[in-house]
C-alpha cells in the first residue's frame, strides 16, 4: 500500500479564485492510500517544494499527487523535488486543475467538483505507480542546421567554435538566405552584404562545418542525441569539386529568360547561373527546366566552353546519410503572396512592388545598379508611396493575423534612404500604427519624419488606381478624417512575413510542432524560447516567429548554446516510460513487433521455467534504447503481456474508474 501525499496548489488566485481549495484538500483525505493532504499558495516555489520535502520525511510518503498547473509546465520540477526528498521521481502525478479546470470554468461549485474528480483520478493512478529508472543513451557529437541564412549560419558558427561538428543543409544553391538580398540594415544603415558575406566565408572555411547547398532533408528517424537523417543533394549538373567558378559558362549560356529569383524576378538570369557574385559555393547550377540542353537535347554550349570540364548533364542527385545529436531549425521565411490584395494592383501594375523588390532596386548589385527606377519604364520616380500592414493583422483569412514586426522599421529605412539619395522625391507612408520597440528604433523612425521629411499618414490605402501613366493611391487620413489621393510613380507594399513553405514538412519529419501560421512552436513561450517541444530540436530565427536581424542572431546563438550543452554530454537519460513484455505471458505472436513504429521489439528464444519445467520459448523483447513509449504494442498484445511503464493498463483502468466514480 502506498503512502500518498496530496498537495493542492492555489497558484496565487489562478486556481484558488475558481476552486475551493479546502474542499479538494478534505476530499482527498478519504481517498485510498492518502495519508496526508494539504495546500499551498505556490507549490512550485522554493517554499512549496520545501513543504513537499518536509511532508515526505514527516509522513513517510511513497507517492505524491500535485494538484496544480499542467504537467507540461511543472512535472519535471516536482519530480526533481521528489527525487531530492528521496522519493522516486516517477512516483509523482499531476492533477491539472488550472488549465483544465480553474481557467475555463466560471461556476465555483462546478470547478471545485471537477477538481476533486481530477485529483482523485491522479491519486488512483499513483496507487499503482512503480519506481522507474531512466536508461541512458549515447550522444552523437555532431549537429545539423537546416537553413543557411543568417540564423543558420550564426548557430552553426557558434556550435563549430565550441568545438563540435556541424552540417548546414540549405535548399538554395547558395547560403546567405534573405539577408543576402537586403541592401542596408536598420537602424545603423550598414550594408547587409558587408556584414553577412564575411560570416558566409567563415562558415565555408571553418574546419568543423560542412555545407550542403542545393540540398534538402528527406527523412529523419531517431531521437535526441541520435537522429539519423537522410539528405538529398540535388544535382547541380556542375561538378563542384573541379569547377573553378570562372563564370564562362554563364556568359555563354543562350537561355536568358528565367526570372532571377535573387532579384525578385525584376530581371532575368541564364539557365546556368550562380544566384549572386558572393555566393557560396561559387559553383553554378543548371536550372533544368530552363536549360535548352535538358529541354531539347541540343546546345551544351556551357560544357564546351568550360575549361575545367566541370559541366555534367548526367549528374544524379546524391544521398547523404548522417547521424546527429541535435538539430537546429533555421528555415526562415518568405513574403506573403498578394493574390488576395488585388486592390493594390500588384499583379497588374509593374510599379507596384514589394519591399523586398525595393531592396533589390536600391542595391548596387541589383537589377538597376542601385538606381531608384520605375520597373515599368526605367524612369526615375518623383513620388513614392509606402503601404504598411499588407496582409498582416488580417483576420479575414486573406492574410496573416499577426504583426510582421519588421515592416515599420524597414519602411522607415527605405523612406530615409530614398530621401537621402534623392531629396527631390516625395515619400509618403500609410500606416495603421508605427511599432518601433527596440534599441534606437523609435529614434530612427523619428529621424525619417523630422530630419528627412517623410510624410507619415495615419490611415490605410483602399485602392491603387492607375491614371494617366501614374498611380493614384486612394487612402484615408484618419487624423483629419479625410480621404486622400496621392499621385505616385512607385508604390511599395510591406507584404507580410510568412513561415517558409518547407517548415510544415520538416515539422512532420521531426515531430516538432508548428502553430496555425506554420511557425515552429517553442517548448515554453517564455522560459524555453529556442527549444522545440521535441527533445533535441532547436529553433533559430524567423522560423519561430517574425524577427529582425539582431533578434535572429541572438536567438541563433541561444539555440547554439543549447545544442552545445546537449553535445557536451556523453550520455543522456532516456524516458523510462517505455514498453515491457511479461515473458511468462508472452505468446510469441509477433503482433507487437509488426506494430512498433521504431522497430524496438524483437523476438528471442529464451529458456524459461514454467510449471517447474524448463522450456524454450519465443518471446518479445523491447530494446529500451529504441522504444519511445507510444504504447501501440500494448493494445495489439492478445495475451496481455505487453504493458507500458508509467501508463500501464491497470493505471489507466484505475483512472477511468476514479473519473467515472
Amino acid at each position, binding site marked *: 500500500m502506498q503512502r500518498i501525499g496530496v498537495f493542492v496548489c492555489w497558484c496565487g488566485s489562478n486556481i484558488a479564485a475558481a476552486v475551493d481549495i479546502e474542499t479538494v484538500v478534505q476530499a482527498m483525505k478519504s481517498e485510498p492510500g492518502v495519508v496526508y493532504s494539504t495546500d499551498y499558495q505556490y507549490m512550485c516555489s522554493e517554499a512549496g517544494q520545501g513543504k513537499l520535502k518536509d511532508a515526505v520525511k514527516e509522513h513517510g510518503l511513497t507517492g505524491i499527487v500535485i494538484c496544480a498547473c499542467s504537467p507540461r509546465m511543472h512535472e519535471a520540477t516536482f519530480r526533481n523535488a521528489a527525487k531530492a526528498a528521496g522519493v522516486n521521481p516517477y512516483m509523482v502525478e499531476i492533477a491539472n486543475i488550472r488549465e483544465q479546470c480553474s481557467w475555463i470554468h466560471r461556476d465555483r461549485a462546478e470547478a471545485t467538483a471537477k477538481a476533486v474528480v481530477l485529483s482523485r483520478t491522479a491519486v488512483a493512478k499513483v496507487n499503482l505507480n512503480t519506481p522507474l529508472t531512466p536508461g541512458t543513451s549515447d550522444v552523437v557529437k555532431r549537429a545539423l542546421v537546416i537553413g543557411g541564412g543568417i540564423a543558420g549560419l550564426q548557430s552553426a558558427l557558434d556550435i563549430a567554435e565550441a568545438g563540435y561538428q556541424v552540417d548546414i543543409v540549405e535548399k538554395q544553391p547558395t547560403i546567405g538566405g534573405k539577408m543576402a538580398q537586403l541592401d542596408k540594415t536598420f537602424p545603423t544603415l550598414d550594408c547587409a552584404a558587408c556584414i553577412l558575406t564575411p560570416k558566409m566565408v567563415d562558415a565555408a572555411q571553418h574546419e568543423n562545418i560542412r555545407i550542403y547547398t542545393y540540398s534538402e532533408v528527406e527523412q529523419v528517424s531517431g531521437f535526441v542525441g541520435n537522429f539519423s537523417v537522410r539528405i538529398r543533394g540535388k544535382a547541380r549538373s556542375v561538378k563542384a569539386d573541379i569547377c573553378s567558378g570562372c563564370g564562362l559558362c554563364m556568359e555563354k549560356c543562350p537561355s536568358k529568360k528565367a526570372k532571377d529569383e535573387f532579384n525578385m524576378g525584376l530581371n532575368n538570369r541564364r539557365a546556368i547561373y550562380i544566384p549572386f557574385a558572393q555566393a557560396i559555393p561559387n559553383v553554378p547550377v543548371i536550372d533544368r527546366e530552363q536549360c535548352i540542353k535538358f529541354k531539347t537535347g541540343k546546345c551544351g554550349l556551357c560544357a564546351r566552353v568550360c575549361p575545367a570540364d566541370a559541366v555534367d548533364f548526367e549528374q544524379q542527385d546524391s544521398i547523404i546519410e548522417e547521424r546527429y545529436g541535435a538539430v537546429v531549425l533555421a528555415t526562415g521565411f518568405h513574403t506573403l503572396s498578394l493574390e488576395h490584395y*488585388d486592390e493594390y494592383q500588384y499583379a497588374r501594375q509593374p510599379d507596384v512592388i514589394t519591399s523586398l523588390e525595393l531592396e533589390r532596386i536600391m542595391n548596387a548589385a541589383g537589377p538597376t545598379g542601385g538606381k531608384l527606377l520605375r520597373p515599368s519604364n526605367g524612369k526615375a520616380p518623383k513620388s513614392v508611396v509606402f503601404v504598411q500592414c499588407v496582409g498582416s493583422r488580417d483576420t479575414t483569412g486573406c492574410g496573416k493575423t499577426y504583426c510582421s514586426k519588421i515592416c515599420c522599421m524597414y519602411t522607415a529605412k527605405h523612406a530615409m534612404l530614398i530621401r537621402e539619395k534623392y531629396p527631390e522625391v516625395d515619400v509618403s507612408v500609410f500606416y495603421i500604427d508605427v511599432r518601433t520597440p527596440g534599441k534606437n528604433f523609435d529614434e530612427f523612425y523619428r529621424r525619417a519624419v523630422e530630419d528627412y521629411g517623410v510624410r507619415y499618414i495615419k490611415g490605410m490605402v483602399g485602392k491603387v488606381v492607375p491614371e*494617366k501613366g501614374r498611380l493614384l493611391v486612394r487612402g484615408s487620413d484618419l487624423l483629419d478624417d479625410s480621404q486622400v489621393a496621392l499621385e505616385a510613380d512607385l508604390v511599395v507594399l510591406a507584404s507580410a512575413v510568412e513561415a517558409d513553405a518547407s517548415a510544415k514538412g520538416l515539422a512532420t519529419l521531426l515531430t516538432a510542432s508548428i502553430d496555425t501560421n506554420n511557425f515552429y512552436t517553442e517548448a515554453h513561450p517564455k522560459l524555453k524560447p529556442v527549444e522545440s517541444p521535441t527533445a533535441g530540436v532547436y529553433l533559430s530565427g524567423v522560423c519561430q516567429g517574425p524577427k529582425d536581424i539582431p533578434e535572429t542572431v541572438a536567438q541563433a546563438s541561444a539555440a547554439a548554446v543549447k545544442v552545445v550543452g546537449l553535445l557536451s554530454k556523453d550520455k543522456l537519460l532516456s524516458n523510462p516510460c517505455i514498453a515491457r513484455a511479461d515473458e511468462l505471458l508472452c505468446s510469441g505472436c509477433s503482433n507487437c513487433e509488426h506494430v512498433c513504429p521504431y522497430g524496438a521489439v524483437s523476438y528471442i528464444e529464451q529458456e524459461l521455467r514454467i510449471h517447474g519445467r524448463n522450456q524454450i520459448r519465443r518471446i518479445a523483447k523491447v530494446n529500451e534504447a529504441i522504444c519511445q513509449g507510444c504504447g501501440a504494442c500494448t493494445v495489439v498484445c492478445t495475451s496481455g503481456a505487453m504493458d507500458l511503464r508509467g501508463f500501464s493498463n491497470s493505471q489507466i483502468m484505475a483512472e477511468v474508474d476514479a473519473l467515472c466514480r
Partner: protein
Amino acid sequence: MVFDYYPGCTLKTEARELDEAGRRSAAALGIELQELDAWQCCGAVYPLGRDEIAPRLSSVRALAAARDHRRDLLTLCSACHHVIKRVNHDIRTDEKIRDTANSYMEGEQAYQGETKVVHYLEMLRDTLGFDELKNRIKKPLTGMKIGAYYGCLLLRPGKVMSFDNPENPSIMESFITALGAEPVIYPYRNECCGGYITVKEKDQAARTASRVIDSALEHGADCLITACPLCLYNIDVNGTSSKDLPVYYITQLLAQALDV
C-alpha cells in the same frame, strides 16, 4: 442543359431587352431556361439586418422551387443574383434565419440551401465555356472596344458571391473577348455607380456614375456593358461625360454577336 430561370421584376418592364436577348441567346446556345411559375420580386436589396425574415422569403421560395425541380437557379439581373445568392448563403450558414424562414414556407420539405445559384455569365463560363461560345459567334463584334462594368453586386462580398476575383475580375473581359471585341480594363469597373440612391440623392448618384464613365473613357472604351438595369439607368441617364458612352446589357451584345 436545363436551368430554372428567375428573371426578376425589372426584366419584365424597363429592362425587357436584358431578358429577351438573354432568352434568345440561350436558346441559340442550346441552353433551356425554364422560367419559374410563380416567382415574386426578390426585393431588389439584400436585407442586411439579421432579423429581417420577410424580405428573404421570396428568394427562399424561388430557391426551394428550383430544389424541387432538381435544377440550378439561373439569374441575369445583378441585383436579383446578389439577393438570391446571399439569402441562399444565409440559409446555409445561419440556423436562426433557416429555421424562421422555413416556418413561413408552405412546402413539405424544409429548404436547407440545396440549390446552386448561377448567374448567366457563370453559365456561359462554366456550363458552355467561353471557347465554345466563341465558336458559336456568327457576327463577331470585331473592332469594338468594350469596358466591362461589374459594379458591386456581382462581386461583393467576394467570400459569399464567389463570382470572380472581386478586385481583379476577368469573367466579363473573357466574355467580351469571346464575342470578338476588345475588352478595356479600367480601374472603376468594380466601383459603385451609386444607383441604389438614385431616387432621392440624384446629385450624388450622378457624381459617382460620372466617375465610372470618365474612367472608362480615359482608358479608351467605346461603350460599357453591364448585367444590372439599375447601373445601366444610372450611368446612362444620370451620368454626365465629355463624350458619349453608350451602355448595353451583356445579353444585347451577345444576341447581336449570335445574330439572334
